C-alpha cells in the first residue's frame, strides 16, 4: 500500500541543537516533496519545496534533502529555538493526476530552552 511515514510523533531537543525530522514514503514516485509547519489550532504553513531532481534545498536555518532512491526526505532546523516548536508535516504530489497533496501525519517538535 502507499504510505507516508514521519519518523516519530514527537521529538524533543535542546535549544541551539539541530533538529532532524524524517519523511519516508513507499510506492510513490513524487515529482516534488514539501514541508509545512503547523501550530496548534492553526492551518499548516508552507516552508519548503524540493523537486525530484534536487538533492538539497536551504532557506535560512532550514535545510531539506530528498533522496528518491531511499524514498526519504530529511528536514533540518539548525540552531533551533523554542519558537521552532510546532508540528512539521511532509507532503507529496503522488502523480496520479489528482491535483492535491498527500500529507504525512506529522512530527511534533519541542525545543527546550
Amino acid at each position, binding site marked *: 500500500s502507499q504510505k507516508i511515514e514521519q519518523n516519530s*510523533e514527537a521529538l524533543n531537543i535542546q535549544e541551539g541543537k539541530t533538529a532532524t525530522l524524517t519523511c519516508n514514503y513507499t510506492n510513490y514516485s513524487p*515529482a516534488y516533496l514539501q514541508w509545512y509547519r503547523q501550530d496548534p*489550532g492553526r492551518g*499548516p*504553513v508552507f516552508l519548503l519545496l524540493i523537486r525530484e531532481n534536487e538533492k538539497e534545498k536551504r532557506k535560512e536555518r532550514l535545510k531539506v534533502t530528498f533522496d528518491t532512491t531511499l524514498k526519504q526526505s530529511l528536514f533540518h532546523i539548525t540552531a533551533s529555538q523554542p519558537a521552532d516548536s510546532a508540528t512539521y508535516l511532509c*507532503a507529496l504530489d503522488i502523480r496520479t493526476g*489528482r*491535483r492535491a497533496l498527500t*500529507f504525512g*501525519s506529522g512530527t511534533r517538535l519541542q525545543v527546550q530552552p
Partner: protein
Amino acid sequence: SQTIHQWPATLVQPVGSPLSLECTVEGTSNPNLYWYRQAAGRGLQLLFYSVGIGQISSEVPQNLSASRPQDRQFILSSKKLLLSDSGFYLCAWSVLLRNTEAFFGQGTRLTVV
C-alpha cells in the same frame, strides 16, 4: 496579495443537524481548492478538491459533500451530521496547473455532540 478566509473558527453541532462551512479566496483567479480534515494528532485527509466551478472530486465516501458555486468559493456541507464528522476542517488553495505549495485557511474546529 492572496488571502483565504474560512469560517466559522469553531462550531458545535448536534448529531443529525446540517452543516455548511464556507471558504473564499481573494487575490487570485482559477485556483485549485481543497477541503481537508484532520483528526486529533493525525495528518490531513483530503476530502474534496476542485479545479474549476462546478468541478468537484471526492476522495473518500462519506457523509459530506462539497460545492463550488463561484470561482473562489468552496463550500463543505452535510445534510445530517454524524459523531464521526467531528474534526478540524481545513480549506486550502493552490495555483491551478502548477501543483506547488498549498495555502491554508485557519481551520474550523467542528464538534458534533
